[in-house]
C-alpha cells in the first residue's frame, strides 16, 4: 500500500528518522564530508604523496613552498619554477632563488616511487608528480621541506594516516571499556555502580597529561614503531573511556524500567539476550555520537604527546611528530610553513566536533 508523503514519518524506521534529522543539520553534513575526505586520505596516503616521506637531502633543507602556476600561456598546464639553493656570502645561510626561466611541468597520475596501493596493488602512479624523467634536480615541494630536506606535503599525507588511525583505534578501545564498564554500572546498579562511578570520578579529577607523560616516557627506547604505536594507543584510550561509560550508564538507567525491557525479561529472555538484542540497538545511535565526540580528544592527545617527544618517535610520522619541528620560535619565524601540520589537526578536530554534535541531535529523532 502506498503511503502518502506526509505520512512517511509514521512508518519510517528509526535509522531513517535519524538520517532525516541529521540531514537537516547542514554543518554536520559538511563535516561528515570532511571526515570522509580525511579517511580517504588515510587509505590513499601513498597515492596522494609524490615523494618518499623519508627521503632526505641536506642540499634542500628548509625550502619554502613552491608556488604553482596553473596556466601556461593562457592554456591549462600547471607548472612550478625551478629553485636553486645558494649560500648567502655574508650570513652563510642557505637561501633559495626561484629561476623563472626554468619551468617544471606538473603531471597528474605521474610516475613516482613504488608502493602498494591499499596495501595490495603494486604501482608507481601518484596523483601528481613531475613530468618527464625522474631527475633529482626537478622536484616539487608544494608545502616546502623540513630541516632535513624532506617533502612536507608527502610527510603530511603519511602523518594523516597514523594520526587518524591511532585516534580510531584508541576510541575503539575506550568504547569497549566504556560500554562494558558503563553497562555493568547501569544494568546492575548497587555496589558495582557505586564502585565504577567513584573510579570514574577519581580518574576525572586527576590531571591526566602529566600521568600519561610518565607512562609514555617509560616505554622502552628499543621498541619498534609498531609496538610504540599500540602502547600509545592504549595510553590515550585510558583517557577517553570515562565519558563514554557515563553515556552508556545513563542510557541503561533510563531504559532499565522501560516496558519493552521488562516484558523481555518476563518472557524469559536471558540477560545477554535482553542486553544485546533488546537494549543495545535502541541506543546504538547515542553510542556512535558519543564515540565521534571522543575522537578529537584522542587526536589531540596523540599530537600533544608526540609534540613533546614522548609519543610516537621518528621515523614514525604523525601530525605531532611533524609539529615537533615547530617547537622553536626562531625556527618557525624563519620557516613558518613548518607550522602547517597544525591546520589538519584543527580542521579534523572541528569536523569531528560538529559531526558528533549533529549525530547527537539526530540520535534522538523523537526529541523536540
Amino acid at each position, binding site marked *: 500500500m502506498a503511503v502518502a508523503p506526509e505520512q512517511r514519518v509514521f512508518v519510517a524506521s528509526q535509522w531513517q528518522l535519524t538520517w532525516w534529522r541529521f540531514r537537516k543539520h547542514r554543518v554536520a553534513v559538511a563535516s561528515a564530508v570532511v571526515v570522509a575526505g580525511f579517511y580517504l586520505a588515510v587509505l590513499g596516503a601513498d597515492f596522494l604523496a609524490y615523494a618518499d616521506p623519508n627521503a632526505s637531502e641536506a642540499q634542500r633543507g628548509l625550502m619554502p613552498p613552491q608556488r604553482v602556476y596553473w596556466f601556461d600561456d593562457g592554456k591549462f598546464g600547471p607548472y612550478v619554477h625551478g629553485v636553486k639553493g645558494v649560500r648567502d656570502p655574508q650570513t652563510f645561510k642557505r637561501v633559495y632563488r626561484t629561476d623563472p626561466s626554468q619551468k617544471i611541468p606538473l603531471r597528474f597520475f605521474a610516475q613516482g616511487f613504488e608502493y602498494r596501493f591499499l596495501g595490495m596493488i603494486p604501482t608507481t602512479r601518484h596523483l601528481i608528480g613531475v613530468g618527464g624523467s625522474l631527475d633529482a634536480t626537478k622536484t616539487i615541494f608544494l608545502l616546502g621541506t623540513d630541516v632535513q630536506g624532506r617533502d612536507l606535503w608527502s610527510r603530511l599525507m603519511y602523518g594523516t594516516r597514523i594520526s587518524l588511525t591511532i585516534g580510531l583505534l584508541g576510541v575503539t578501545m575506550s568504547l569497549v571499556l566504556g560500554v562494558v564498564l558503563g553497562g555493568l554500572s547501569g544494568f546492575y546498579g548497587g555496589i558495582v555502580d557505586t564502585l565504577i562511578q567513584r573510579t570514574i570520578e*577519581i580518574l576525572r579529577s586527576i590531571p591526566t597529561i602529566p600521568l600519561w607523560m610518565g607512562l609514555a616516557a617509560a616505554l622502552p627506547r628499543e621498541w619498534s614503531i609498531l609496538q610504540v604505536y599500540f602502547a600509545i594507543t592504549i595510553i590515550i584510550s585510558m583517557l577517553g573511556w570515562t565519558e563514554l561509560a557515563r553515556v552508556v550508564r545513563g542510557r541503561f538507567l533510563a531504559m532499565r524500567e522501560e516496558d519493552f525491557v521488562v516484558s523481555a525479561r518476563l518472557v524469559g529472555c536471558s540477560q545477554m539476550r535482553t542486553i544485546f538484542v533488546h537494549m543495545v540497538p535502541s541506543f546504538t545511535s547515542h553510542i556512535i555520537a558519543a564515540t565521534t565526540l571522543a575522537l578529537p580528544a584522542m587526536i589531540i592527545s596523540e599530537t600533544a604527546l608526540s609534540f613533546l617527544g614522548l609519543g610516537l618517535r621518528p621515523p614514525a610520522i604523525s601530525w605531532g611528530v611533524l609539529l615537533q619541528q615547530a617547537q622553536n620560535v626562531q625556527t618557525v619565524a624563519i620557516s613558518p610553513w613548518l607550522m602547517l601540520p597544525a591546520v589538519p589537526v584543527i580542521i579534523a578536530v572541528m569536523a569531528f566536533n560538529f559531526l558528533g554534535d549533529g549525530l547527537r541531535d539526530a540520535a534522538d529523532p523523537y526529541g523536540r
Partner: protein
Amino acid sequence: MLTFIGRRVVLAIFTVWAISVLAFAIIQLPPGDYVTSYIAQMATMGSVVTDEEAQNLRIQYGLGRPIYVQYYKWVKLIAQGDFGMSMEWRRPVTEVIGERLWLTVVVSVAALILTWALALPIGVYSAVRQYSVGDYLATFVGFIGLAVPNFLLALVLLYLGFVLFNAHIGGLFSPEFNDAPWSWARVWDLLKHLPIPALILGLAGMAQQIRIMRANLLDELRKPYVVTARSKGLPEPRVITKYPVRVALNPFASTIGYTLPYIVSGSIIVSLVLGLPTVGPLLLKALIAQDMFLAGTIVLLLGVMTVIGTLVSDVLLVWIDPRIRLEET
C-alpha cells in the same frame, strides 16, 4: 551540608591515594632499581658510593622487599618531607622543584579566575542578546577555543608576537627579574606577564562555560517568573541578574571540578611552548633523563594540588547553592 563535604573529603583522600600509587608506579617503571642507577650516576661523576652507604639506601627504600613494603616506605619518607634525590641535578627533589610549583599554582589559578571572569559576562550577554553579532562572535571564538589545542594556540600567538611585534611573549618574568629575589617589582612583573598564558590555558574551558551559561540562561529567561518580573516594571538589568542568572549559575559552578584538572594538564604543555618557569618543562626533562624521583614527585604534587583545588571549589559550590547547603541527608 556536612555530609556532602564529608563525602567529598573521603573521595579526595581516595583520589590522593590513587595518585600516589600511580606516581609510585611511574618511579618503578624504568628497569633497574634506584640505588643501582644512583651508584652508576655517581661513578660517572668520579665519586664512589661505599658499600655501606649503598646498603643504607637499600634499607631506607626497602629494596628487595615486596612491592607494597617499598610503597609504604616511600610514603613514609614523603610524610617526613623527604622526596628523594634528583639524579640529574644531584640535589634533593624539593630543592629542584622549589618555587616552580608555586608558579604552576599561580598560572593555573589565574587561568581559572580568568575563565570565570570572562565566561560569566559573555555567557549572559550571548543569552540576553541571542543571535546578535556579539553572540555569533562569542560562539565563533568558543569554537576556536574548543578546536585548537592550547599548545598550538600558544605556538601561533608566540609566532605572531615574534613576527608582528618582534616581541617574545613567553616567560613569566622579564630577563632582569628571572633570578631576582621576591619583591613588589617582581610581583608586578609577574602580573604583567600572566594574562597571555592564563588566556591560552583558559580559552578551551571558557568556551565550554560560555556554552553552558548561555544554554542555562536561555532556559531560565523563558520561564513565567521572568515575564512576571518584567510586567511588574522591574528594570531589565535587575530582571536578569536578580533570579535567572543566579539559577543558571548552579550547573555552571558544578563544572569547576573538572575545569581545574584540565587546566593543570594543559599548563604542562603550554609552559613548554611559552617557556614558563613552572614544573612543566622540568617534568619533561626529568622524564627524558629518566630522573624518576623528580618526575614521580612532580606528578604526585600536581595531583594533590588539583585535588585540594577541587575540594575548595566544591566547598564554594555548597556556599553558592542553597539546595545542597540545606540538604539534611
